């Protein structure tokens, strides 16, 4: 079958690979009907993520039709022929964390748990197509994919919704939504969102759904800021004006009540701290560039909340913990607990309260995926979300 494989920095190819097989009793094989490229796939493309091996299949946002079931799959939950979306993290549903609906913390789905345990103290759940440190599972930018523990993971979607409408339930919609939920939004709040990529777009729309009075979208890419304005956000182009001053002006000198860092570890920026980050990362003195996070902490009003959907991987330098402490901030963060939000988000889509198709800018065949990666990497203004058809 055809699949999009990673070989090294800036080198992804469409390759001919073996079909996936049922390996464990609760596995299913999914025929992929739609799959997307995520901003965090660009971290893989840009060579930021360790433990990648040449030949790995990428892709953690995918959906399709179940074509084969392992002997141990709970047949009351899943059947051959079911049309499903698959959360990007693999979770079991039975461990301490899954029972608390913290499915991105699942205890049982990383076969390579020893690696993150060494760095973090414990391992999070495994993920599709996102390095060996996070499970080494083959991803879904392919014609077929193996889905472990399918009777817990696979989420059935109704026939009257198109692939475009439900595909983003796999990752970016719940990620933006959880970011907004974590921001503890109250009536009257101004929510500032750093990053106007797909996660930022879903975060600001979710913030409005969850009762924010106003959202402010911060980025330097014109095409993205335009998409934010289409949702009713006020925008700040950080290449043209100082973010902190503008936010203070917008909030009557108090600062935004809630701040969302939807930029993560590859933050760009023109300030001195951003420049130092770049040097440190290039010389291996730091792993993550945290300009957006630092700015969010500086700008957030006293007693406010900083919500971090990420992604962060390693360590950051010069973290303004004094500011966070002195202002009594709440920091909430984490990899998305997709399973927790799916039923609620499906209802929002069905009720027309949020139509995820707004974020799609490109539709391409899987065979063109390497071009799509290149385009996405080089032109973030025009290319916001690429949907691939195998």
């Amino acid at each position: 079958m055809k699949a999009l494989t990673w070989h090294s920095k800036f080198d992804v190819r469409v390759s001919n690979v073996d079909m996936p097989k049922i390996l464990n009793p609760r596995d299913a094989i999914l025929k992929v009907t739609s799959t997307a490229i995520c901003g965090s796939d660009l971290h893989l493309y840009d060579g930021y993520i360790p433990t990648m091996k040449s030949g790995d299949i990428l892709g953690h946002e995918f959906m399709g039709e179940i074509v084969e079931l392992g002997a141990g799959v709970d047949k009351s939950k899943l059947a051959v022929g079911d049309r499903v979306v698959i959360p990007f993290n693999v979770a079991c549903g039975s461990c301490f964390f899954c029972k608390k609906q913290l499915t991105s913390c699942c205890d049982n789905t990383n076969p390579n748990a020893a690696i993150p345990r060494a760095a973090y103290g414990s391992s999070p759940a495994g993920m599709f197509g996102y390095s060996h440190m996070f499970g080494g599972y083959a991803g879904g930018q392919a014609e077929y994919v193996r889905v472990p523990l399918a009777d817990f993971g696979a989420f059935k979607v109704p026939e009257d919704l198109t692939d475009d409408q439900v595909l983003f339930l796999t990752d970016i919609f719940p990620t933006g939504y959880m970011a907004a939920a974590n921001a503890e939004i109250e009536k009257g709040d101004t929510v500032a969102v750093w990053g106007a990529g797909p996660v930022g777009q879903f975060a600001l729309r979710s913030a409005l759904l969850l009762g924010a009075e106003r959202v402010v979208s911060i980025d330097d890419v014109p095409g993205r800021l335009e998409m934010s304005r289409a949702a009713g956000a006020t925008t700040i182009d950080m290449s043209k004006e100082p973010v902190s001053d503008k936010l203070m002006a917008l909030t009557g000198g108090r600062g935004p009540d809630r701040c969302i860092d939807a930029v993560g570890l590859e933050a760009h920026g023109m300030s001195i701290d951003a420049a130092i980050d770049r040097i440190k990362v290039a010389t291996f003195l730091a792993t993550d560039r945290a300009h957006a996070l630092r700015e969010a902490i500086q700008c957030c009003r006293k007693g406010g909340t900083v919500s971090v959907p990420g992604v962060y991987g390693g360590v950051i330098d010069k973290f303004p913990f004094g500011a966070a402490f002195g202002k009594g901030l709440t920091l909430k963060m984490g990899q998305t607990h997709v399973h927790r939000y799916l039923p609620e988000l499906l209802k929002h889509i069905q009720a027309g309260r949020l139509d995820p198709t707004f974020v799609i800018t490109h539709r391409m065949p899987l065979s063109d995926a390497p071009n799509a990666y290149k385009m996405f990497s080089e032109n973030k203004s025009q290319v916001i979300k690429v949907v691939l058809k195998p």
Partner: protein
Amino acid sequence: MVTPNSVTRTISETTLDQYDLETMDSESPATKPRDLQSGSSTKQSTVRNVGSNERNISLAAGALLLLTGLPKLMRGRGILQTAAGAGLVYRGMTGSCPLYQHLGLSTRDAQQHQQSSGKRASGSSKGVYPDGNERDTPSSKPSAAPSEYNLRGIHVEQSVTISKPASDCYAFWRELGLLPQFMHHLKSVVETDQTHSHWVASAPLGFSVEWDAEIINDEKDRLIAWRSVGNAGVDNSGSVRFIDVPGREDSTEVRVVLDYIPPAGKLGSIVASLFGEEPNQTVKADLKRFQQLMETGEVATNGDGKPRAK
């Protein structure tokens, strides 16, 4: 009273001097080792410990050496070569390697174990497989004294918390034959009676390490403790406890304590490779797999990262 000196002397007496490679005759007095615990002597047996593939290779290599060595012998050279060739042929034909026996190694495949019936040493290492076949054992030496664990042992302690009742965890663990499902260095565990079992661990290059064990403490839903007995490939003893977690219903802490004595020499490095660089990591990984089995019914796998581009 056991003093360090007396222990050292006893180790050398029993482990080194008891084996006289020249006279492998089981009736020879020189080859009767002393049993530390009972003071009685035990018979040595020749044992089939060479895998079938290896036997063929041994035979072929030995024949070649002999064929090319014998003509040389006529001219007064090639003694070593001929001797080596003869040794390899013996090994290939009988499936028995004195050197392996001395080191407690075996490359026999599992099927051979099932079909064989060999001499049995008396002493604590006897047993019959559930299918009725006898299996032969390595020759006896006494199992390690407690002080040896102090002197040379490796100590491992790990625990994991599992969202299942202690009774479920105990019941799965107590069926020792299931242990290889999550302890990946184990090839097989066969229970021979209520308290005795035979263990085979696999190491690289087809070597396996074997030992007999007995359960010395068995408290339902709470504790299983064991120790190896007789001539173990690696002396070991340990326990697993199943502890109710205070304040959390249906959660069990599974706590493993394991002590083992890495043997000297080649066998030592093979045993070391079983446990990897970090025995604590290996046991931790085993416990993680046990948790996966208990909570999800299967061990997580990524199929070696496949499918993938070559």
